């Protein structure tokens, strides 16, 4: 179950203006709700209730419907990510090549489970499906940067690189 996080919302007026502009320009697009939430997540990094409310107002779509969409798709996040978001591919190719052990090692090293954020807000950990780099299995991404052909022993070194 996805839950709204209780970390206070810190959106800026610039972000809001950017989102409202986009919504006003595209409000007539067929099936606009999905692209709108994708845009909002691109701007804010996640979809807190305040942001979904802006989308609902501008597009005149009931909040309940938007909430239904944002909780249906795995990519929409209702809580903020850490400064460094680490994502472990648990696709089939990676799983067969030992992605489970990589996930365990990350969890041990960071002291958090999947879908959690470290208390200092530095790292978050999540699992994802095949990112298409199966040739490099098992793979993880750190803020989109890919690390492949991993063994658990590689993990502490990678984390250290991002610690500060």
């Amino acid at each position, binding site marked *: 179950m996805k839950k709204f996080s209780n970390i206070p919302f810190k959106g800026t007026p610039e972000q809001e203006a950017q989102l409202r502009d986009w919504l006003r320009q595209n409000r007539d697009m067929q099936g606009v709700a999905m692209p709108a939430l994708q845009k909002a997540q691109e701007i804010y990094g996640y979809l807190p209730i305040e942001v979904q409310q802006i989308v609902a107002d501008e597009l005149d779509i009931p909040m309940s419907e938007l909430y239904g*969409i944002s909780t249906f798709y795995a990519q929409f996040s209702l809580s903020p990510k850490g400064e460094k978001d680490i994502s472990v591919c648990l696709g089939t190719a990676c799983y067969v090549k030992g992605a489970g052990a990589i996930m365990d090692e990350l969890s041990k090293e960071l002291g958090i489970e999947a879908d959690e954020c470290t208390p200092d807000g530095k790292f978050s950990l999540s699992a994802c*499906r095949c990112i298409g*780099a*199966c040739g490099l299995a098992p793979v993880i991404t750190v803020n989109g940067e890919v690390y492949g052909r991993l063994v658990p022993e590689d993990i502490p070194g990678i984390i250290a690189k991002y610690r500060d």
Partner: protein
Amino acid sequence: MKSIEELNALRRASRKLVALRDGITGTETYKYHIMVCGGTGCTSSNSEKLIELLKAEVEAHGMQDIVKVVRTGCFGLCALGRIMIVYPEGVFYSRVEPEHIHEIFEGHIVGGNPVKKYVYSETLDEDGNVKPLTETDFYRKQVRVVLRNCGVIDPESLEEYVARDGYQALAKCLSEYTPAQVVSIVSQSGLRGRGGAGFPTGKKWSFVADGPKKYIVCNADEGDPGAFMDRSVLEGDPHCIIEAMAIAGYAVGADQGYVYVRAEYPIAVHRLRVAIDEARREGLLGRHILGSDFSFDLDIRLGAGAFVCGEETALMTSIEGKRGEPRTRPPFPAVKGLFGCPTAENNVETLANIPQIILRGADWFAEMGTEKSKGTKVFALGGKINHTGLVEIPMGTTLNEIVNEIGGGVPNGKKFKAAQTGGPSGGCIPASLIDTQVDYDNLISIGCMMGSGGLIIMDEDTCMVDMAKFFLEFTVDESCGKCTPCRVGVRRLLEKLDKITEGKGTLEDLDELEYLCNYIKQNSLCGLGQTAPNPVLATLRFFRDEYLAHIVNKKCPAGVCKALLSYTIDKDKCIGCGLCAKNCPAEAIVRTDYTAPGHKLASFEILSEKCVKCGVCMDNCKKIKAISKR
């Protein structure tokens, strides 16, 4: 471009851009073409850096008019990435490191001699001469129809696509064929959908009902984890999909198309966007294409991480901007699809065949493959296999050829155990059936399915019960929740497998598993639920002994299921150093009073009732190897 003449003029003018790569010399503007793979695999290992360094070398030597550096799509041999091919010789450099670039450039481009130590070893003969890539085991049996441009052209260049006959098929349709004729050519070719179900494409197009507004939808959701065929086509040859969708639009009378791409594929989305913009600028999309009465335009919609959205009706609901839940069929999309209008929905790979079928004819296509499965199929080879990557082979190639010849066999001298096809909806082919000719019907006859092309190879270290559990965890996560058999039933299946892998299963559980599987298959609303039990049924059929080992002997033969493992110390190998005991988080390791002959210290033992099976002791005993798991 306003006419076919203009298209042909561009083709003539562009031929020299790519001729060198087809082995034609004499017309080229550049003496050397350096092709660097910019597919997701190689980009992930930073092939961008190679391009940067190469461009700097070109500049430093003032060779801008002699050397062209091209970023291409995937060559297929992802296991050897970063990959670079140099024409005119077609020399294949593998695992290229940024540090090699200077040496390769000096030796090969400036000096004229390929730098053999970085050349892929299988492309060197006994005398050390470089031979063409097409003569290696990996490529010899492949036939490239869908992937014909991947790795050969710059996907962001319309000229290069046009130079290799791009948009000629569309021109041919517009000038020579009626829409009905196009449908009939596709029907005659015998092309079947590559998205999984294998439905005849011509037939699907012929079913599209009349109406004022119709749509073409391209399914690029590619949800099977471990599959990347469609992504590679979009990354390596995006114009081909645009052309094919325009042809489909002409054939069924649609003027708008959508490509639904999963958001995890940023490179594919970017290249497709670039291609659509350029096609639009050049009048290959939009109103009155090539001076005809036909108008067609395209838009991209991004998925947001929901496997069920690969199912055609759920995909359309998602494009409509709603929760991606499937709808009951009938009405079928051909009658009532996107926004309630008649819609033809096809997979990326299916579409990629269309331009070639139009250009080379239905008979040419129908000659490839088996009686009921024509043409080629692209597979993404992954898992325990030497040549991880992308292969395109004629239908009917045996699994043995795919695994042992093209794929280069299983690494580390391990034994091939099974191949998983069709992802979470599919089944597995055991080693005993390795001579199966891979086509739609043969796979179905052994309780398996073609699926979209993910082919995961497993060796003796893979536990088949664990594998089935892995796929069920996936489907439990991805079930949209609309129908009960899928939402609740698959979860029950998973609970049973959990029980079995924990050593608490009974023989009755096996019967109940089978009963529940069949119930879910028959009663689920969409393909997700209807196929979710397949991995369980297939493993039960071919690997029942492994289930029995878990249930009766309480053992996991592959040594994967944690609860059934036990770690033991070989008391005669143990040197008594105590490293294991010191690092054991559960204090489960104690010293015995036995000292092995020739050793100074007494050996240790593991107390099974305290052991949490974390494996730390085994890691700590890597040198002596006195600890083993079973």
